[in-house]
């Protein structure tokens, strides 16, 4: 059983990496670009996803009361009737005063919009927000019941988000598919790039490999430095891509924060909440592509 010195193998790998010079730099640049494009696309998709989810709670039905204020004795009765309905999980009541406060908070950046309203001319109605579980059919049944004036004469409008929920669900699935396909293409391109880089590294050292074979080197001994070189390329690319991703994301975040995001219309997740996923994603993606690319190339071009 041969025992190789790890320090010797590692030093051979890094010597090879530096000896490849421009080729190593080129592969780092290309892999970094692929990671950056994947990362940016992934972060955009994630933000889109978060915004779609936060548009509203989709398993909710909003019932607006007929009256500016219900007679006091009806509150408990109405609440009890609503909670007793099948599939209802929660009933929230929002008074017209609270609705005005909520809206003022939401549009704090534009106080002039709601400044002219007060208790006297409050434009909001009292609202019951009903959360439910179950299938689409259960939701339809619940809606049918709530819209039945004989059962719930207190409500002037009953709004559901069933159609929106379905549309958004389809949209989310479509986005995920596009993202998946895009990632697959990028991974494929990266693998091809790594394969070619390793192939070129092998051909530039073909004589050295030939001598090693004659001496009695195992395939593992010959391949190891190429694999480490490749994984090191992946690591360097991941680090550079992470730094660039951090800078570009924060730049975009700051730019959008002073625009649309500041109005509360869209939400942008700060990088501080995302960086662990970006690190894991970049490392996983770069190591995976480098491992697959070099493994294919080594098995194809290095013979014992």
């Amino acid at each position, binding site marked *: 059983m041969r025992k190789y010195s790890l320090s010797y193998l590692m030093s051979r790998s890094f010597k090879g990496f530096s000896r490849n010079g421009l080729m190593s730099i080129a592969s780092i640049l290309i892999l970094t670009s692929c990671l950056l494009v994947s990362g940016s696309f992934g972060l955009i998709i994630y933000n889109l996803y978060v915004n779609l989810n936060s548009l509203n709670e989709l398993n909710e039905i909003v019932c607006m009361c007929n009256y500016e204020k219900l007679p006091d004795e009806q509150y408990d009765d109405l609440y009890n009737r609503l909670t007793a309905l099948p599939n209802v999980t929660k009933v929230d009541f929002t008074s017209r005063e609270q609705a005005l406060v909520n809206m003022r908070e939401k549009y704090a950046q534009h106080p002039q919009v709601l400044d002219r309203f007060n208790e006297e001319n409050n434009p909001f109605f009292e609202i019951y927000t009903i959360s439910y579980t179950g299938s689409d059919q259960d939701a339809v049944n619940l809606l049918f019941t709530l819209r039945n004036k004989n059962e719930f004469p207190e409500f002037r409008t009953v709004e559901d988000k069933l159609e929106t929920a379905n549309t958004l669900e389809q949209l989310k699935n479509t986005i995920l598919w596009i993202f998946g396909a895009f990632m697959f293409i990028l991974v494929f391109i990266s693998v091809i790039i790594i394969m070619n880089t390793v192939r070129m590294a092998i051909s530039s050292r073909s004589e050295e490999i030939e001598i090693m074979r004659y*001496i*009695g080197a*195992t395939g593992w001994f010959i391949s190891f430095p190429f694999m480490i070189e490749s994984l090191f390329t992946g690591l360097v690319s991941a680090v550079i891509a992470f730094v660039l991703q951090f800078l570009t994301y924060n730049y975009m975040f700051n730019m959008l924060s002073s625009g649309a995001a500041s109005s509360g219309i869209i939400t942008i997740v700060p990088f501080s909440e995302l960086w662990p996923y970006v690190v894991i994603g970049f490392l996983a993606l770069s190591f995976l592509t480098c491992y697959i690319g070099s493994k294919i190339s080594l098995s194809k071009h290095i013979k014992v």
Partner: protein
Amino acid sequence: MIEFKHVTKTYRSSTRETTVTALNDINLTIEDGEVVFLVGSNGAGKSTLMRLLTRMEVPTSGSLIVNNYDLRKIKKRKIPEYRSQIGMDFQDFKLFSKYTVYENVAFAMRVLGKSSKSIKTTVPLVLSMLDISARANHFPLEISGGEQQRTALARALVNNPKILIADEPTANLSPAMSREVMDLLVSLGENGRRTVLIITHDVELISNYKHKRIVKFERGKIVYDSKNDEVRNDA
């Protein structure tokens, strides 16, 4: 022992339409500890023979057994182990230009996973044996052709192989240096220490070694195989 039995090696042409027979029905037995000159002109099949012996190629037909390894049936994982028993000395030396003489020789031991301690003990001994200790820290381009050949030989010998194959070892050397190197090669096989196969086309040079065996190849066939002086004169 090296045993070729009806070994034939053919190559397909690049267009795959024709085949070229490099070795044709070779029968040859070389006992352990023999020193053998393999001679022949270009294209006679000497290099193919060398590539078969180092298991870089596989015979198309026939059987080739070396040190009890059947080279047609040997398992892939056993090939490095087999090759570690063979020392190769190349015509163009194939030294690493960025390694010193010492590092070139040590490299052969590192490839086989030898310890640093063993490398530090063995390499100076081999360099001393081949009289190139003074050049240990020089790079190949800083030393003469003869010294490069000695370095290449040191690398081939450092793992103490059972078989040493020298491919045209004097091709790039002056006549005086050629004689010196050839003497050295022949001495490495003295007293049956190891089998030494010397591939060369320099018939004049090997006429100095009257007691050694010569095998002559022509167009992929052995046309002459003898230790007999009289027969060698015919060759």
